[in-house]
């Protein structure tokens, strides 16, 4: 029995520590000025996060190295991943983020890659509109009308047809979307408090 309860406490330790840590760090939002202990814990936690990144990046490189050794079909992709990871790490170690080569790589690879994804978003948003936007139900029909209203509001078309169109679109955006967004977030925050309540009661855990 003693052995059992000891095991349970050990099992629950990550969750207990998580709740205590959460409370201490969260206290910075309601004490003014923040107390020193909470600042230390927050800073220590923040500083520890990169170590997890280092471990997982190591695992990432190991996985791609294994793929190359096994001569998987993804070898070119694996080689580029390992090569670029090693290059970036070396550049970072040598010159830091201020290194001109690093800055040029960042600006021309990372930023361009990000912009490529963002461009893909704009196209991918249109894709389902054309693929599945069919008025199969009244709600779907309403959704289609709202989408067209938005398209007309955020481009000059609406104003060119009738000034009432962008005004209606703005009304929907500011008041209806604003209110629904508010409801969404308030519900999420209540859900978050419920989550913490479950964690305090050890009904929700941070380890399996």
């Amino acid at each position, binding site marked *: 029995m003693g052995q059992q309860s000891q095991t349970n406490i050990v099992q629950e330790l990550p969750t207990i520590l998580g709740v205590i840590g959460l409370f201490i760090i969260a206290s910075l939002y309601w004490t003014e000025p923040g107390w020193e202990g909470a600042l230390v814990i927050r800073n220590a936690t923040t500083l520890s996060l990169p170590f997890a990144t280092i471990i997982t990046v190591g*695992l990432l490189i190991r996985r791609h190295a294994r793929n190359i050794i096994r001569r998987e079909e993804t070898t070119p992709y694996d080689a580029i991943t390992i090569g670029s990871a090693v290059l970036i790490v070396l550049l970072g170690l040598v010159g830091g983020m201020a290194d001109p080569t690093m800055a040029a790589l960042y600006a021309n690879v990372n930023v361009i890659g990000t912009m490529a994804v963002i461009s893909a978003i704009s196209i991918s948003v249109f894709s389902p509109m054309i693929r599945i936007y069919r008025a199969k139900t009244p709600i779907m029909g309403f959704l289609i009308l709202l989408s067209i209203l938005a398209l007309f509001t955020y481009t000059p078309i609406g104003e060119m047809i009738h000034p009432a169109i962008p005004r209606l679109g703005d009304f929907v955006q500011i008041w209806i979307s604003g209110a629904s967004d508010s409801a969404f977030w*308030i519900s999420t925050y209540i859900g978050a408090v419920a989550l913490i309540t479950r964690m305090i009661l050890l009904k*929700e855990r941070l*380890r399996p």
Partner: protein
Amino acid sequence: MTMNQLVLQALVRVDVLGVFIAFFLVLLGASFTLRGVSLRSIPTVEASLEAVRACSEKGNPLLFDTGWTGANFWGHSSGLTTLCFVPATLELLRAISRESGKLGVRVITGTTNAVYALMSHDFMQRGFAESGHPERFIPTDIRFYPDNTALNLSDVEMAHRLPFGAAVMVGGHNQTSNVVIYEALATEGAMIVAGEIWPNDNSMAALAADYMSFSEENIAIGSYLSDDPVPKAILAGEDIIKVFLIAIVIIGGILAGAGVW
């Protein structure tokens, strides 16, 4: 000083701790009084297990992508919300892994959070162990990407190369970039289950996914997966708080309309 200024002043001075304690006490009370309450099911839970079965039939792997879910210290609301998704999505991963282990489905994950990637390992391993097939757990299928761009591009690449039989994308993606992955998956005929943290991402789920659920529902996935009546009672207790807040809004609206406030 006008009435509304006084009320505003009072509200500003109510500590966040006070609000939390009040909510906590209501929910704690609910955990006793509302035990045994039955809850409606949410699409994400049912559909996620159905997604495993769909993958089994097709003989393809399943994508479990949680994006930005995990601990971060941006210190504002939308960042902290990603933290709330951690226990729920990990429980879902365990349930999916358990089902996948039984049916021999490979699960490939995607995350941009290093700590979450490490935690995924434990939950996934446990899930496969519970299925009776621990040997089917492949640790290298836990994919960590240093940023959202890498995750996005890699998911799309895998969606076309493997392809996936289904995808469960519960978590936080980035400024609607989830829709790029959804469309790559849809092109290959994969079933899509989604539940995003942020409303603008969820609107993309509404646009393109087969099944979706909201942020508040997703935080509670662990409760839906559990047989324990207490978490379900706490979930039901949330409605008490909502009714209270709605009453305040209505009464405040009436008072404002009547010119009292």
